[in-house]
């Protein structure tokens, strides 16, 4: 069991619906976000390449945030989901410093917060909120170990990449290109 996500950059229109859906599902305070959209533009007019990506915590296999956490507040649960226990987090920000994706932030109530892969939904067999809301169906979620999961099928016949694999963290979010 290894949860992962594939995001089709060819379909993503960068509407940020995933961001709003996450905010309402997970009660992320206004002014903060657990996921976001990045746009990169390369080339010179009129030969321009644009990539739109929905980004979030990569739930790394070799998570630097979990490694750096002095209290064990950041931990990995079954399925490889990286979580933060707010009551064990002292707010030292070491995990924030350690994340190559800048995926963590300090919640106004003090603890560090980030994407949970909607584990409260996933536990019940539902998709993450961002996956369920995406109007272009460009987010695929599921068990990477199961060859028939949505995410495995999405990755099967397409070229894909991960973000900053050279950071050696083993990200579990893949971008179809």
């Amino acid at each position: 069991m290894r949860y992962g996500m594939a995001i089709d950059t060819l379909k993503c229109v960068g509407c940020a619906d995933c961001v709003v859906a996450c905010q309402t599902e997970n009660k992320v305070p206004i002014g903060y976000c657990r996921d976001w959209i990045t746009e990169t533009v390369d080339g010179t007019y009129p030969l321009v390449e644009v990539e739109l990506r929905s980004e979030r915590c990569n739930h790394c296999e070799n998570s630097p945030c979990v490694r750096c956490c002095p209290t064990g507040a950041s931990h990995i649960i079954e399925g490889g989901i990286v979580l933060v226990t707010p009551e064990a987090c002292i707010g030292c920000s070491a995990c924030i410093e350690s994340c190559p994706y800048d995926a963590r932030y300090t919640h106004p109530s003090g603890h560090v917060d980030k994407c949970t892969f909607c584990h409260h939904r996933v536990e019940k067999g539902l998709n993450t909120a961002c996956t369920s809301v995406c109007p272009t169906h460009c987010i695929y979620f599921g068990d990477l170990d199961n060859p028939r999961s949505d995410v495995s099928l999405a990755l099967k016949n397409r070229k894909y990449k991960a973000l900053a694999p050279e950071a050696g963290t083993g990200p579990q979010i893949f971008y179809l290109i």
Partner: protein
Amino acid sequence: MEKSRRNFIKVSALGVGGAMALGSSWNLVNASVFDSSKGEEVLSSEGKKLKRYPTYCEVCFWKCAGWVYLDEEGGIEKIIGNEKDTHCEGRLCPRGTGGVGMFSDPDRLKTPLIRVKKEDGDIFQEASWEEALDLIASKFSGIKEKYGAPSVALLKHGSPGKHFEHLFKAFGSDTIGEPAYAQCRGPREEGWAATFGGWVGSPEPTDIRDTKCLVLIGSHIGENMHNSQVQEMAQAIDKGSCIITVDPRMSTAATKSKYWLPIKPSTDIALLLAWMHVIIYDELYDAKHIEQNTHGFEELKKHVQTFTPEWAYGHTTIKPDVIRKTAHEMANAAPAVIVHPGRHVAWYGDDTQRGRAIAILNGLLGSWGKRGGFYLKESISVPKYPHPKYPHPKWDWKDLAKDYPMAKMGLTQEVIRASIPSEAGEHQVKAWLVAGTNLPKTIPNKAILKKAMEAVEFIAVVDTMPMDIVQHADVVLPECTYLERYDGIRSAANRTPSIALRMPARKPMYDSKPAWWIAKQLGERMGLGDYFNYNDYSEVIDWQLQQMGSSLEEMQHKGVKNFPRKSGSPYYQDGETIKLKTNTGKIELYSTELAALGFDPMPVFTKHPEPDPGFYRLIYGRAPMHTFSRTSNNANLSDLMDTNSLWMNPKTANVWGFSAGQEVYLKNQDGIISEFPIKIRVTERMRWDSVYMVHGFGHSNRKLTRAFGHGISDTDMITNVSIDPIMGGTGMRGNFVTFLTEKPEEAES
């Protein structure tokens, strides 16, 4: 109020009206507007007991059906799409998902306001509903007595507009205008009607999910989040369909396209004619279809003979081989090809003809009524709730639009013009009710709008938010949001007919009221009680649903009901003759209607003015997380994008020595300077001769605490308006701007 200059209320200073009887207004509601027992109980993903209520979205006008989830404390937790709804397939767009921000906005209009004249400027005073409604009713009745009912005009949009339309027709006025027509979709509808005998309508019946080739001309699906179209475009991308995007800006859709044609703005008709030329002269059309279903092919063939791709290159800057290649792509895909009619198409004043050119191209390609082209939509009609016959108004919007023979709806700008005594003809407008439309962000040529607002005797505004228009009102009525009210049943034309219910999920916050209630109260005060023969709008809906074989109770649990098609297949069979309501019954490549009216029966290319040196064409558009100025103060959505930016090619930036993020003011060809500065986005996604910004920012009402002063209102920069002689559309893309690094002092207000 006597006829006097109505100044603009900068900060709506609030004094509480002395006679205001607190709480009395709620007693005016004699039936239960809100009954919390009606919500359906569901378990949340966290195992919590939530209640959900059906609605259809009002953040834009695609009207997706959804569910409003309430948390244990009764707060609105989230809004999720209704999985049975064909508009959204269970997935709302960011605005729909963020609709909760419309409800929770602390800046909402909270209580009726009445303008009070003061020596040092007018202020708003809080008032009771009785005071406010009485005042409006007496003003409207007085104007009716003095000038006749048609002198009271309704300018509206969206669901509240429907309720006031009923009120106005009962009152005897059909002086009604909606910016969605002349400022937006109107030209394409009439271009379409002249070709196919009917409007495109909304949602557009584009069969994008099965298309092999999608052509977008200045239409930016993905940035306009017309939900089902975006979903279907993603499906088309999945299937590897060829997308061709014509846009001076590399829109999001252009980034997904096989071909991006960065056309020189205002030359689209030249490209369309060249495409016709290639299809006809390379014999890429289906001769049998042309023979069977079209009228005027030979005339068209002759007409486009000289419009070669080489000719078009000179105008459009699109290379001839690209024009040929893309024409072949379309023809290869035909009839599974869509040349999208677009949506906001009021650009250059010849927009009906451009809409015609698009329609003709579709006619040549045979995409009408074909899988992967345009499907044949079907809707179910909602029976009219019984009411006395409307009186026949002495004059109406048609009289104001008589210069534009094909105008089929009220032209907002003409209603506005008729409000200025010196400009108006025999029919003068003396008072307005503005509902759900923020005119200063919608209507170009602010000077005329301002003059009209100063000239009319009375303005009442119904809105949920203190939009810019509110600053010009005599009376402001706070409407509750769509999450707190019943509205008319949504019946939409789609592949299959469907209806959707909107019911309140929450009791209205503050002292706000639903539009149906306001309309009824005004009606009763003006002696029109017979037209409002119900206590609660839910009675109307229930009666209508019963007639349709459903009930309010059923719809409260389902939210959406889909009906089977009655008109047969949504596609014509191969070889089947297409039936249309044009004069000839065929696809009119040569328009008999336009010819009879003395217009060009086939589109011609006219050169439009170009920017002077140092000026750049101002192009505006949409962002996926906003619906114009409606959402710029929505906390959830302004969190995603809180201002617009000015897209500028690096070459342009270089010439001016600008860097990304730098703020500039804009000055247009008529010397109009923007109220606020705008940040520059230096990007290769933009042509060098134009600049682009997202429409709907630059709010001037300080009461909008999140949106005030954020970015620029493109509408303020649009003073040169090219009116479409056919249907009165207001072409707004002929405006040019230059940059100022500082605001000149005399321009500061």
